[in-house]
C-alpha cells in the first residue's frame, strides 16, 4: 500500500487561513489501512480544525466525505455535485488522489493534508515499513524476496557494503542490513549460487530517472 502521515497541524492551519468553508475528502483504500486519511482520520481532522479555528476566533466550516478510491476519475466525479459550495477541497489521500481531484476541478484549490511517504507493508498493527521502490524492473526473484533498492540504505546491487555489522545497517542499529537478510534467505532456500552472480549495473530509466512514467494497456484503453 501507499503510506502517508497527516501533516503537522501548524502547517495545515497556515494553508487553510484564507478559507471559511472546506470539503475534507478522504480515501477508502491505502490511507485508510495506514490510518492516515480514511473516514476516521477525516472525522478527527475535521473535529480538530473546527475546534482549532473556533479557538482562534475564525470559525471554519468543514464538511466530510470519503471516496472509494480518490485516484480514479470515476470516484473523483462524485464530488462534482457539491464542490461548488466550498472555498477549497482538502484531500487526505496520497498524492495520487490529490492530483486526480485537482485535475478534475481546475478552478478550485485542492490542498494536501497528508505527506505521502512510501510503498510499504504492515510489519504489525501500527507499524509500516518501506518495501518497494517501484523501480520498474523487479529483481526480487534474484534476492530471496528482499528488495535491495527499497531496503538497502545505499540501494546497492551487489552487497553488502563494508558498513554491515551483526546483521544491522551502518545508518542505525534499528535498521536491518538488507544484504544480510538476502544472504540469510538465499541460504535458507538453498539458492546461494544466486548470490555469486554479479548483478549488472541497473538501467534506472525504468525507474523515475527516465522521467514520469505511464502504463498504457491498449486493450483496456478503448
Amino acid at each position: 500500500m501507499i503510506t502517508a502521515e497527516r501533516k503537522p497541524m501548524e502547517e495545515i492551519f497556515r494553508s487553510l487561513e484564507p478559507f471559511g468553508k472546506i470539503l475534507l475528502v478522504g480515501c477508502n483504500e491505502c490511507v485508510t489501512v495506514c490510518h492516515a486519511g480514511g473516514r476516521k482520520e477525516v472525522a478527527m481532522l475535521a473535529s480538530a480544525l473546527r475546534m482549532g479555528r473556533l479557538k482562534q476566533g475564525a470559525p471554519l466550516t468543514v464538511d466530510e466525505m470519503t471516496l472509494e478510491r480518490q485516484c480514479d476519475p470515476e470516484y473523483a466525479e462524485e464530488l462534482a455535485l457539491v464542490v461548488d459550495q466550498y472555498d477549497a477541497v482538502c484531500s487526505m489521500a496520497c498524492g495520487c488522489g490529490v492530483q486526480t481531484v485537482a485535475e478534475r476541478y481546475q478552478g478550485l484549490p485542492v490542498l494536501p493534508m497528508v505527506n505521502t511517504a512510501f510503498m510499504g507493508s504492515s510489519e504489525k498493527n501500527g507499524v509500516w515499513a518501506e518495501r518497494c521502490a517501484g523501480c520498474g524492473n523487479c529483481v526480487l526473484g534474484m534476492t530471496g524476496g528482499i528488495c535491495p533498492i527499497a531496503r538497502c540504505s545505499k540501494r546497492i546491487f551487489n552487497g553488502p557494503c563494508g558498513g554491515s555489522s551483526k546483521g544491522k545497517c551502518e545508518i542505525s542499529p534499528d535498521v536491518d542490513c538488507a544484504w544480510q537478510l538476502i544472504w540469510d534467505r538465499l541460504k535458507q532456500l538453498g539458492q546461494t549460487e544466486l548470490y555469486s552472480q554479479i548483478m549488472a549495473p541497473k538501467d534506472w530509466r525504468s525507474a523515475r530517472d527516465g522521467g514520469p512514467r505511464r502504463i498504457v494497456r491498449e486493450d483496456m484503453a478503448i
Partner: protein
Amino acid sequence: MSDFEPVVVVFACDYCAYTAADVAGRMNLTYPSGVRILRVPCTGKVEPLYIMQALQKGADGVMVAGCLVGDCHFKNGNLRAAARVKRVQTLLDDIGIGADRVAMVNVSAGQGAKFAEIATEFSKKIGEMGPNPIKQGAKAAA
C-alpha cells in the same frame, strides 16, 4: 470564574470505573454534578474521535476511566486507551485546546472512594483552567 461549573465527560469502563462510580453513589460520596458518566464496554472502545467530539460539543474536560493496569477484562483495552489518550493530547496541544483537558485514569470496581476523589480533583483542575476555549472563540466570532 468562581461560578463556573465545568462539564466533565467520563468514559467509564463497565467492568471497573462505572461500577466504582456506582459504589461511590452507594457510599453516599459526592462529586461535582458537572461530571457526566458514559458507560462503555471497555476503554479500548473509546475512539479518539469520541473524545474530540465531546470537546467539540462543549465539554470542558474528558476523562477516560479504565481498569487498573493488568486487570483489563479484554487484556489490553486500557493500555490501548492510554495510548490513544496520549495521541489525542498531542493533537489538543497542537490545536491550542491543551492536552490537560483530557486524562486517562485507572480504578478498580471496588474503589468507589477513589473514583469520587479522582472525579472531584479532575473537575477542580478543569475549573481552574476555565471553560473550553472554543466557547470563547465562538462568542468572539459571533
